């Protein structure tokens, strides 16, 4: 009985709100570099959560998710730099552009299954990369699009306590709010009846089709939603990095986000953000000591895949369950 009471107590505390508020204090309590890292973590978290709608929720392994991230980054970057469109319009346009591209490419991708689906997503992302790399007049080719202006954040000065924040800090806070809203939206989508249908499709597509679900339409919808949010993450990343470059769309970035998702635990909604946090943080810590970061990452993945298939979050949850089980037995 104690176990259950503890669980209800823990679940009453608004953890997500606490995390959000803790993250929001970084510009005041941390250094400029901490804000820099936190921005990267927050943007990667949204990117990874958007991928997990495909990977964890729908069971679609996409090797080309970076394409939508890249389309979003380019749409927002080109609009803001070349056409001087304000951020309030360029940001949703990035999501919309990525969603449109996801609709077109997804239409073909969901016609294939398993490895063939993965390969086709990879093919589409390489096409986006080739276009970004070659279309000099629009994307800047191999020189990219540097010097994308920051959105106008002077209005933040009106908020008490925000007056002496640097532009990078202000942009971090804006990013944090936008990412929190996006992740909340993804959470609602995952928990909605629509999200439940996606899980059904993941677990048993034949049965889902048998009970009358249009499996392809649902998969395509998930693909478009995931693409749209990846596009939003890309738009923020382009602004954060002060430029959009063809390398953002290279396939190795797709691998990176898959690693984040698996590292955190793709069976849990909060797995990917934890994976993003762990990957960025570990990268910082380990590259300070050794240049063999890929070796360390490989070793960590090896252990995770064999010992903790649920990733970090899965491992921790299992640990807590075990502890609670032991406690409950002692109490009895």
């Amino acid at each position, binding site marked *: 009985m104690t176990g259950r009471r503890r669980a209800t107590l823990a679940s009453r*505390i608004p953890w997500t709100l606490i995390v959000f508020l803790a993250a929001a204090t970084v510009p005041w309590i941390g250094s400029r*570099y901490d804000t820099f890292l936190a921005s990267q973590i927050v943007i990667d978290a949204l990117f990874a959560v958007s991928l997990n709608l495909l990977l964890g929720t729908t069971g679609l392994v996409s090797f080309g998710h970076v394409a939508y991230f890249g389309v979003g980054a380019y749409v927002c970057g080109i609009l803001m730099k070349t056409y001087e469109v304000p951020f309030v319009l360029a940001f949703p346009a990035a999501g919309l552009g990525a969603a449109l591209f996801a609709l077109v490419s997804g239409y073909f991708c969901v016609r294939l299954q398993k490895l063939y689906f993965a390969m086709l997503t990879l093919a589409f992302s390489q096409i986006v990369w080739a276009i970004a790399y070659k279309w000099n007049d629009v994307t800047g*080719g191999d020189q*990219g699009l540097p*010097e994308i202006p920051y959105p106008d954040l002077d209005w933040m000065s009106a908020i008490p306590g925000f007056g002496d924040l640097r532009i990078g800090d202000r942009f971090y806070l804006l990013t944090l709010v936008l990412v929190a809203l996006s992740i909340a939206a993804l959470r609602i989508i995952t928990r909605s009846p629509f999200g439940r249908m996606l899980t059904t499709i993941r677990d048993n597509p034949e049965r889902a089709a048998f009970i009358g679900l249009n499996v392809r339409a649902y998969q395509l919808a998930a693909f478009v939603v995931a693409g749209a949010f990846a596009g939003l993450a890309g738009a923020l990343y382009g602004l954060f990095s002060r430029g959009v*470059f063809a390398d953002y769309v290279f396939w190795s970035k797709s691998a990176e986000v898959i690693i984040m998702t698996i590292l955190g635990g793709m069976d849990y909604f*909060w797995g990917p953000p934890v994976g993003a946090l762990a990957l960025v943080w570990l990268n910082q810590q380990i590259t300070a000591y050794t240049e063999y970061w890929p070796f360390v990452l490989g070793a960590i993945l090896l252990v995770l895949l064999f010992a903790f298939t649920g990733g970090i979050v899965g491992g921790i949850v299992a640990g807590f369950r075990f502890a609670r089980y032991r406690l409950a037995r002692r109490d009895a």
Partner: protein
Amino acid sequence: MPRGYIVALFCATGVVSMPASGAEPIKIGFPIPLSGPTAVYGEPVLKGAELAVSEINAKGGVLGRKLELLSRDSKANADEAVRLARELIIKDNVDFLAGTLTSAEAPAVSTVAKENKIVFIAPTSKSTILTDPAHIHPYIFRVSSNTDVEGLAGATLVARWKDVKTVATIAPDYAYGRDSIAAFKASLKKLRPDIQIVDEQWPKLGEPDFTAFITAQMGKKPDAVYCSLFAGDFVTFTKEATPRGYFKAIANRMVDGAEVGTTDEAQALGGDYPYGIISDSYDPVIFTGNEPPEHKKFIEDLKAFTKAKYASGWSIVGYQAIYALADGINRAGNTKSDDVAKALPGMTFDTPVGKRTFSAKSHETFAPEYWGVMVKEAAYPFAVMQNPELLPPSTETN
């Protein structure tokens, strides 16, 4: 469940880190490719910079403070170079930036320098967009040449061949190649309006097979060729062109403006070098005569520093970048980027191959390069530049 709590815990640990304090040495961030195919350039450039730092520190540093070079591997990648430059500024609190290699990296890092108000000295990028009126800002300076200067020098050399009536070009299909050929054509039109451009080939950067480009160009029967291929591309190109009689067909009348006249490229090609062509180098390393005494000492020091048998033709640009910066700091009297940025325009500094001056308007040195016919020399197992000549003689291009 306590999943959220764990996230909070991770956040807390991630946020704790130590702020750097007590900035005693003057820190210079140096992103440069140290892996991948362009590392063969990045490493010697970095060595040159390291040599300059060790020399300056041996003499007591700048303003009584030692210099510290923080080099990072940019992987010849604009994205990575920008990330590293920002990290060097935000995390390592560097006072200045130097380095980068390609024409994609330098303009990208330049925007970071502008935004953070940190002086940035580019040692190798030739891209004109680095300092053109639309992109210039108070903190960007360049010690390398640019494509306009290179095109003018190349056109001057081609124009000297009085009997040449038709010229063809071949260059890698990206920003540098496009700019370089456009500048060459513009200069040639002024110098020799009678010469016709009969063919332009645009293989991609890193092209594995040049056969189609070679045969197409030979079909147009040009009298001479202007070429901007470099590094591994030039090696591949040469190995495919020689057996097809390409160089024989143009009687070796090729000018290459992409530094295939360096000892580095000559060593890479060895006996396969197309002897007789004309090319350039910031530093020919081996002078057959008229060697400036400062240069002789520089090469001796460089060889001792790198423990290599032959010095690289690229080290000099890294060396110049650091000396230019050190002179600027001395002139400013402090390490504030704003003051150094005001001290550098118009400043003249010494290099092992003569004086250079940063233009007050464009922050360029319009560095001339050494050009000459690449010949076989009994004393060396690779091609050597004959009678290196500084071109263009007048360095006023804009």
